[in-house]
């Protein structure tokens, strides 16, 4: 059921592209500075750069006059999260209520050349899921799955906590037009970015309507000792536990030999 709904949503999103193409014929060409980011143990974050141009569409020779707007939405690997709220119960603070966010991006960046609310009308932004407020963050509410209103307290808290971790962001200055048709976007990746595929969705607007869209992706992989440890713990629990305890006993034994008094 969920899958069918998702398919329907995708189709509905795709419709306006097909519909608007003949009117403002343009095509997006993008290139990423790096399609593969390796996170090593001393990784403190990275800034990736996306370059691109606006080309006339097939058949057309020129592009329209007037300025374009560009919105880049980057979504990281999806995870389930639980947002919990503490309340005072009998004098002490206890987690009393929680909401589960199902298959939401671990990383979400909305980058544009000016505030998204100036780029298109609210309903357009909502339909295209542009902006942190409009991106669908599915919550499990009893047996149902649905996104709530943008000012739902759990949604607000979730987005705020993810922003604090630098994993969610919305920047109206991260995209810059070098010329009228050449642009660059900076994609900041924090140190604790999850490994996996990051989808990059680029949407071009002219006069409040989307005129072109393209997608690309980048891969984040972690290397080094710490990653090895994390993967071992997740995938081989028993072996990991046994090795950890063997390490502990060896250190205990070494200490007993080194500092032996009798």
């Amino acid at each position, binding site marked *: 059921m969920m899958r069918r709904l998702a398919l329907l949503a995708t189709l509905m999103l795709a419709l306006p592209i097909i519909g608007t193409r003949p009117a403002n014929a343009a095509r997006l060409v993008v290139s990423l500075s790096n399609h593969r980011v390796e996170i090593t143990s001393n990784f403190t974050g990275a800034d990736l750069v996306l370059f691109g141009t606006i080309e006339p569409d097939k058949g057309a020779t020129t592009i329209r006059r007037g300025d374009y707007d560009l919105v880049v939405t980057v979504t990281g690997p999806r995870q389930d999260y639980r947002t919990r709220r503490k309340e005072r119960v009998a004098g002490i*603070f206890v987690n009393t209520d929680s909401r589960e966010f199902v298959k939401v991006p671990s990383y979400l960046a909305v980058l544009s050349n000016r505030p998204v609310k100036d780029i298109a009308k609210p309903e357009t932004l909502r339909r295209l899921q542009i902006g942190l407020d409009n991106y669908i963050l599915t919550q499990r509410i009893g047996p149902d799955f649905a996104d709530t209103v943008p000012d739902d307290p759990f949604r607000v808290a979730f987005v705020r906590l993810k922003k604090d971790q630098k994993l969610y962001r919305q920047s109206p200055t991260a995209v810059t037009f070098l010329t009228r048709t050449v642009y660059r976007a900076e994609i900041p990746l924090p*140190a604790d970015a999850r490994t996996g595929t990051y989808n990059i969705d680029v949407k071009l607007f002219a006069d409040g309507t989307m005129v072109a869209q393209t997608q690309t992706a980048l891969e984040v992989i972690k290397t080094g000792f710490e*990653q090895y*440890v994390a993967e071992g713990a997740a995938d081989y629990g028993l072996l990991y536990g046994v090795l950890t305890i063997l390490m*502990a006993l060896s*250190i205990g034994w070494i200490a007993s030999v080194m500092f032996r008094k*009798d």
Partner: protein
Amino acid sequence: MQIYLPIADMSVNIFLILGLGLAVGFLSGMFGIGGGFLMTPLLIFIGVSPAVVVASVSPQIAASLFTGFLAHLRRGTIDFMLGGMLLVGGVAGTIFGTWVFTLLRSVDQLDLLIALSYVTMLGIVGVLMVTEGLRAINRARRGGRADLRRPGSHTWIHGLPLKMRFKRSRIYISVIPVWVIGLIIGLLGSMLGIGGGFMLVPMLIYLLRVPTITVIGTGMMLTLTTMVAATVLHAVANHLVDAVLALVLMIGGVIGAQFGVRAGQNMRGEWLRLLLGVLVLLVGLRFAVSLVLTPADPYSVRVVRTQ
């Protein structure tokens, strides 16, 4: 210098963790305790998730206990029969404790259980230590001798069935209280990130009348095994054991303990006990405050599942 803790998923200063290991190791060497009941709260206070702390201090405590266990093994001060019987309860308690831990974590109440348990445990132990320390200081000032009252010879515990003779400790006692004590220590150890020696030793002395010569070594046989079992079970059930954190703590702890042992030999016992008691009370108080004060942010997020 920053170090990334892969399971705790945070960057910390390596010298902070090493220093914590040294300090707690120093105290553990000085007082002959494992130090888990100080290490776990301190790590929680610097911001490591309580669940990761509890799972990760187990191997560190095991390392420090193994050093002590080997020393007692060489001296022959371990009652293997009694230790073995304690282990029956200990392993069962560890399994049950890990299960409760996993269950409470899934309903988001684990941090609360840890905080409440520490407030209770540290409050009681701290008050006992401080009053005992003050009494000892008063006694020393009056020039009196320490009260070496031998505990009464028989209690209701000696009336229980299933009696067994433990030759090395020269006691003849029912195995039921032995199992129960093992169970309690295993349960607390796996849920709270403590070895439990500071509770086990008084229980063995006052309830089972285990002589002082075998009590420490035999106790270590139990706590070492429960910590080994807790490490493996937490790794299997919850994937929460941070080996990098544990390793740094172990290195600090082992070195600190050596200095602690030396320092402990040259210091006045009663003042040390009073000092440790005050420290324990302060840590307990810090937990109590964190429960009562309005949190800076009532909301928190945790990852439930990775796709």
